[in-house]
């Protein structure tokens, strides 16, 4: 998949993954790297940026197996941003589909 494509939707993916439950960095990184083929390392700068924008918050939590984990959760602002991004995404894919899908639209 195109690099620019991935960068554009990475925010959306991370916010969407945090919508239902808090997740830790490693989990986000490995899930995203498997599904959209990005390197694990790109997720951490993104999380940091989202945190500095106030869209996500983080806390440390001990784990039964292994080291303590830094969990990320969606803030109220993050939820609003997620909705905006989702709306944009849906509108965008719908209009692109109209063009590339041609006959189906």
């Amino acid at each position, binding site marked *: 998949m195109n690099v620019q494509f991935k960068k554009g939707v990475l925010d959306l993916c991370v916010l969407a993954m945090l919508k239902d439950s808090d997740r*830790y*960095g*490693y989990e986000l*990184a490995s899930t995203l*790297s498997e599904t959209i083929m990005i*390197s*694990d*390392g*790109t997720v*951490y*700068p*993104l999380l*940091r*940026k989202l945190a500095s924008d106030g869209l996500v918050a983080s806390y440390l939590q001990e784990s039964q*197996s*292994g*080291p*303590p*984990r*830094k969990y990320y959760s969606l803030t109220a602002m993050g939820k609003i941003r997620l909705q905006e991004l989702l709306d944009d995404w849906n509108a965008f894919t719908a209009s692109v589909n109209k063009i590339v899908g041609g006959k189906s639209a």
Partner: protein
Amino acid sequence: MNKKEYISALRAQLRRLPSDDVEDIVKEFENHFDIGISEGKNESDIAAKLGSPEEVAQIYLSDSVPAFDVNGASNVCATQMPIIPVKTGMVIDRGVGPQTAAGFAPVGYAKAPVNAEPSNTAPKSEPADAPNAHTGAKEKEEYTATGPQTGKTYATPNYQQYPSQDPNVSRPIPSEHNVLFAVLFTIFVFVPVWIVALAIILLLIGLTIGLGALSVMLFCWLPSLTVAVGGTVCLALSLAFGAIATAFVTFFAIKGFVVGTIAYIRFIAKGCKAEPKGGNV
């Protein structure tokens, strides 16, 4: 590349960032390695999946562009050249006028091709000095009425949004020194401590000299036994204070005053920045 190598390479790449941020980032990556290791993965696989430290650091560095406001500008370290975001359509060169700014205009505003013959009524029916008169297209009616120069005005860049971009405002070069902190530190910490320490030393020296002088006077006078005893006591006290003062002065004057003052001056001169903890490789 194992965990240690990866972390130190990442740390080296991030050295332009404030040390607190670097520690934070490094901790997150160490944690990533630790979790991976606890799941039975090996360090070099984890490192390979992370992407190169250079690549990762580059994302952090490009995200850390300082906020674009004048107040924030003073916090920017002079060694960190800010990357200046350019607003689309912004005229960067001051000498560039609105005519050349047409280059930024969307395709729809581009000048019509010469041989694209429009419906022949439109341009010719216009009075000679009307809309496109100032474009120099007066004689040859080469341009259609939709050309860039007709009625399309270009707003000057909105410097209110990006005040630090305004070329018409002269600003002092952002100083690295945190002046307010320096002043407060000087008034509330350095000066009071200095005065108190000096007062104690002067008091001790004063007592030494005063009591010594008194004892000498009493010995010279020597009218009675009581006075002689008083003189002896004064001399003893004088010597005691003298000893304390000497010890105090030797220890604290040299260490506290000289070293302290030098440290203070260096601290102020460096712009009130504490030495970063630990080196960067």
